[in-house]
């Protein structure tokens, strides 16, 4: 047993997080009693309709695979029997399969959608999301769009992209009001977007604090707070308070060198979502004193994007930010403020694969990562033909790389758990590390 390198202690905010989570689940049950279920992404606006509940396939599908391999296999088989390939995103094979079966794992009916708002993404099945519910019944579909650009700031391009996105969202909102006869609460939307901006600021601070050695929070713990933002739709001020408290605690831990992992001596990163049903590998790595700092996937969502400046220094990635007191008098004002910061988002997991390697290197350098664990998924999110190129570039930059293979984050089928841990052993021992416990 090696002497502990850093002081560590549990996060004090756990209890509060659990309470919020319970509150969130209760509020969903309440809203279930109302009519109208959408299927969309980036749906802050959905909370501003009185009777619309958003169902996002990604978390639902991930949870299905995590809860029951047996039921998710049945769901995927239901999809495959209708001709959908195994390379389709696992989250969606689970959800859509349950839709074809007509029931969920507990026997309750599948929550059929009343409309869909898919938007395109790098794994492409996002655009097909709307197709499945529409195959069953002729429900309305609005196509979200997510244009963004990379490279140096380009004001003209930015304006065109933002105009387009504002147009798409405004059309969705106007149409949904008309088709479902529901009044959109513009005042609530403005309040929500203001709060979201503040929350992103706090979360961004937390994520930047992870550059500290030792890191005050690991990505395994961070994932527990990852979906808290969804609460914004219900009680934005409460969530803002929560993120403020989280920021305060993480900052205190960073200032006082309170580590997430008491024996932190190796920092590693990822690139895409993990195998959600098998998160124990994070704890397994901690036996070597190796802590996961996260990935562009985890950090971009919270707004912690870094880039190398022309003078060689590192800092926050430049995005368009409106002054806090910018008036939000009209629906267009609010949608514009809500959608603009993402217009230049090269750090996000949606970026072009040609440029992803560079963003990984930026991440590794900023967060002082020694190694990177890159999945080779067979389909869905993270199915990336450029994975080996990313590995090559990272290795050239001095970052050790190990791969593991599996089907996709929401599908247990091909993840060899023992083989996975064996690879981690090989990786760590090749880095000169032995288990500390």
């Amino acid at each position, binding site marked *: 047993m090696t002497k502990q390198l850093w002081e560590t202690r549990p996060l004090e905010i756990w209890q509060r997080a659990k309470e919020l989570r319970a509150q969130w689940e209760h509020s969903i049950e309440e809203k279930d009693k109302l009519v109208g279920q959408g299927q969309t992404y980036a749906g802050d606006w959905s909370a501003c309709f009185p009777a619309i509940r958003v169902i996002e396939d990604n978390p639902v599908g991930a949870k299905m695979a995590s809860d029951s391999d047996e039921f998710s296999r049945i769901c995927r088989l239901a999809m495959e029997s209708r001709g959908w390939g195994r390379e389709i995103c696992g989250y969606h094979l689970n959800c859509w399969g349950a839709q074809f079966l007509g029931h969920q794992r507990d026997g309750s009916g599948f929550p059929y959608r009343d409309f869909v708002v898919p938007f395109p993404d790098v794994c492409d099945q996002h655009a097909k999301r709307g197709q499945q519910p529409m195959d069953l019944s002729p429900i309305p579909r609005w196509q979200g769009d997510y244009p963004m650009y990379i490279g140096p700031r380009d004001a003209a391009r930015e304006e065109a992209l933002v105009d387009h996105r504002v147009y798409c969202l405004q059309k969705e909102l106007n149409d949904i009001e008309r088709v479902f006869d529901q009044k959109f609460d513009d005042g609530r939307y403005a309040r929500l977007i203001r709060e979201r901006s503040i929350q992103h600021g706090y979360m961004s601070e937390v994520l930047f604090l992870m550059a500290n050695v030792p890191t005050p929070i690991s990505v395994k713990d961070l994932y527990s707070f990852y979906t808290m933002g969804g609460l914004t739709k219900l009680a934005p001020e409460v969530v803002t308070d929560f993120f403020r408290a989280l920021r305060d605690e993480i900052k205190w831990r960073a200032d006082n060198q309170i580590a997430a992992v008491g024996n932190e001596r190796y920092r590693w990163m990822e690139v895409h979502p993990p195998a959600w049903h098998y998160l124990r590998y994070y704890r397994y790595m901690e036996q070597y004193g190796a802590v996961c700092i996260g990935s562009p996937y985890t950090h971009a969502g919270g707004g912690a994007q870094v880039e190398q400046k022309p003078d060689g220094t590192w800092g926050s990635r430049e995005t368009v930010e409106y002054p806090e007191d910018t008036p939000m008098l009209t629906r267009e004002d609010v949608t514009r403020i809500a959608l603009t910061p993402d217009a230049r988002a090269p750090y996000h997991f949606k970026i072009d694969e040609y440029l992803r390697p560079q963003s990984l290197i930026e991440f590794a350098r900023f967060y002082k990562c020694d190694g990177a664990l890159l999945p080779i998924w067979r389909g869905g999110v993270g199915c990336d033909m450029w994975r*080996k190129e990313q590995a090559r570039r990272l290795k050239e930059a001095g970052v050790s790389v190990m791969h593991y293979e599996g089907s996709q984050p929401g599908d247990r089928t091909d993840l060899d758990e023992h083989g996975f841990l064996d690879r981690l052993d*090989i990786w760590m*021992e*090749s880095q*000169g590390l032995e288990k500390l416990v």
Partner: protein
Amino acid sequence: MITAGIDVGLEAIKIVIVKDGEVAGKAQGLSGGAGREQAVGRLWDEALKEAGIGASDVQKVAATGAGKYDVAFADKTVTEPIAGARAARYYLPGATSVVDAGASQTRVVTLREGGEIEEVALNQKCGAGLGSQLRYLARRLEMTLDEISALPPDAAAGFTVNDGCVVFIELDSLELLNEGAAPTQVAGAVNDAIAVRLNMILNDKITPAKDTTVLIGGVAKNAAVVNALKARSGIGFVIPADAEYGCALGCALLAGS
């Protein structure tokens, strides 16, 4: 000091006993499947007998391989690339890389000047290019591994099989046989496919392999595959006579440290 290394692989168990830095005894046999622990026991006795010592004379034992946790009496375990890297420096003190081509995994390790590991590249999950594929196809072609090993470099005579998937390799092989190709020609194509796969792993690293690369593992005993790999990679591998014992030897050398 007397130490021992036990490599419990998918196909075979290899044991090496080292006395004062020199090999004093060794033994190998089938891994025994579910009876792996018993197989280790039998081979352990055999190796001790060859070394002319008793079990109590061995001060430290280290185990490696897929079944390393089945060696109940091991003092420590190490992963295969670590063992392979140590063995490479034993065989060739100036070794810069080691390729360990085994039944269930291929590992390519590059070494720094001092012998520390620089980079590890592993095969992907598919069995294509592995020793288990060779054994499987040998059975299908009704040839022995020795017969396949003895094939000349041009045995394939222009025939090719898939190199990405063992199932497809088998299908391709059957198709060639049905079209009238001789088993030796198909076996030549299979050897070439294995070499392609091994070479891919060699190329999956930043530091290129050189002629100071040691080749160990059971596949190293197959001259035809090795010749195909040499031709494809352009590397003149250093292949020890007891190449299949590589990881066991490395383990034995590491056991006392």
